[in-house]
């Protein structure tokens, strides 16, 4: 772990010294075990970058923000690349964002870190002072089914290569499919009833990058009422799910941030599974792949349309 941390700091320092990047987005230690997002602008601050089991955020969110920043009136757009620290799952987001022409490769320099898994922050006691070791009890759900422990895209890779040993059989969501429609409906009712529509799941998702989300839209008409009640909550989650089908890379951010513990990954994992099964689509692997929704093939199965 510390070895990776040293490599991250050295790379960031080097890039900032040479001026190749204008800043580096990484992690710094928070008040206790948790980390915070660091924007490092000076080489001498590179030392504050850390790497540990609590580096959970998918920082590519801030890459999207950079790409969507427009210059002020009379200013020129500064296209100097930014540096970013990513886990392998986060690196998949960059691939997906490149596919969708949101991120231009030349505007980002990527510090990819090989990874054996991170903690589920909800399973770590908030009073814990140091980042704990990753254990079977506290490991994040996404890491249990992760098939890419090495960055898919990076300029510098920190850490030894991690062998791939997991075959993902989607058994975690197969139980949902095994339910009767009625049971499934009741299950989701129970979950979505408590959504407070803080939109944390949308805001934390690097692939929810629309500058005007349909749920904020008032004109020409409102698609969903502001009412925080089951029908509207359900509609929000259904639409969000559909907009992420075949795109979600399972970085798990939506579920991690939810203050009322709605198992949002279950929705996304199910869609990921079906996209793979039906259309042989795997998001975030190859920037040259076609996008699922952008491709029409007459041989596509239509058995779910009735």
């Amino acid at each position: 772990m510390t070895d990776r941390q040293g490599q991250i700091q050295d790379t960031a320092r080097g890039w900032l010294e040479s001026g190749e990047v204008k800043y580096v987005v990484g992690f710094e230690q928070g008040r206790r075990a948790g980390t915070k997002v660091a924007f490092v602008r000076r080489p001498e601050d590179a030392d504050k970058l850390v790497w540990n089991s609590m580096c959970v955020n998918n920082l590519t969110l801030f890459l999207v923000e950079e790409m969507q920043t427009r210059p002020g009136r009379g200013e020129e757009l500064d296209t100097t690349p930014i540096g970013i620290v990513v886990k392998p799952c986060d690196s998949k987001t960059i691939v997906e964002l490149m596919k969708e022409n949101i991120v231009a490769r030349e505007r980002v320099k990527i510090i990819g870190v090989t990874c054996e898994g991170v903690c589920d922050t909800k399973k770590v006691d908030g009073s814990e002072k140091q980042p704990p070791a990753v254990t079977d009890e506290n490991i994040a759900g996404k890491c249990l089914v992760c098939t890419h422990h090495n960055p898919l895209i990076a300029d510098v890779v920190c850490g030894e290569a991690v062998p791939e040993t997991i075959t993902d059989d989607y058994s975690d969501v197969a139980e949902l499919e095994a339910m009767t429609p009625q049971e499934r409906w009741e299950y989701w009712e129970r979950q979505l009833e408590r959504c407070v529509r803080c939109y944390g799941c949308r805001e934390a998702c690097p692939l929810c990058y629309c500058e005007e989300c349909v749920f904020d839209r008032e004109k020409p008409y409102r698609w969903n009422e502001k009412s925080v009640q089951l029908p509207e909550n359900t509609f929000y989650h259904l639409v969000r799910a559909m907009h992420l089908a075949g795109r979600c890379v399972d970085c798990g951010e939506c579920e991690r941030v939810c203050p009322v513990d709605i198992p949002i990954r279950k929705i996304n994992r199910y869609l990921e599974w079906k996209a793979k099964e039906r259309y042989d689509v795997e998001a975030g692997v190859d920037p040259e792949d076609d996008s699922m929704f952008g491709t029409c093939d007459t041989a596509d199965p239509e058995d779910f349309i009735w």
Partner: protein
Amino acid sequence: MSHTIGKDKMDALFEALSEHEVYGPVEVDGVWTYKKLDSAPDLEFGNSQVPPKSVFFPQTETMFEFKRDGARFVGAEEPQRASKPLVVFGVRPCDAKAFTLLDKLFTWDYIDPYFVDRRERATTIALTCSGQKPDENCFCTSIEGSPSGTEGVDSLWTDLGDRYFVESVTEKGEALIELGGNLFVEAVSDDESSAEEVKENAVKAITRTFDRAEVAESLRCLFESKYWEDISASCIGCGMCTLLCPTCHCFDINDVVKQGEGRRERTWDSCQFEYYSSHASGHNPRPAKRMRQRNRMYHKFLYIDNNLGVIGCVGCGRCISACPVNIDIIDVTEGAVARACMEKDADAKGEEAA
């Protein structure tokens, strides 16, 4: 006079409250919120994720209903209000104190009938913090509060293991004792000292302190500071810190019309949402997240204080625990004090040099 009530008497107390609307903390899949109860309350909990402000100020509430008649809407009718007295169990003292802020707010320039009606009908039973509370982000004691505070409380309960120690703070609290009759027994001095111990331990368990002596003053001279850009850089713009705050009270009013039937509805809103401040013209006076974060701090520590004479934070720690990027309201405000000093010094040096 104080009393105790055995935990095994809670079912009977619930029965005795059959003429009341009874609210309390409810757990679903590990998440606690306040709901209307249909059985005795479960008070073995830390604190709720969604604060009990929802009892008096529901997240979504119908203000009145109407119908379409040709091109016009007619017959605006207020929904029938319940007239039963209301009881809320298991409110943490910080959240109860927040009720008193909402009381001021909802009667300040306009008397809000919806909120006031429920508050008037209600008896608030608070629960001294013990067990899972206080937790690592509690700081009520830095905001003139206490884990056994009685502001906004009618009856204060303290967990003594197999029974609760019950102190009546107001007449409503006394009325509860009367209604419960022999379910409540007079406390003995041992009960009193045990309760005292629980209260002292709770204060000791609070680890965070917040020095806000100079916060307001410092904020005043930081409006244009780059500080807000620094502290909001990692903000993702969700509304957790505000929606889950027991003192936050912004709402949005919308008409929901379907098939000729309509309702006017209000829903919690958050100043952290980009569209919150957006005008009908499309202009947004607070387009950047640094402005929205700044607004949150200014509103809590300056504007509410100016208008209502209290600050907009009771130290419950929810915004700290929930923030997906670990933005911490104590660090932000204490940081503002340090930054204001720094900028003042830099200004002074600049003037000297000139």
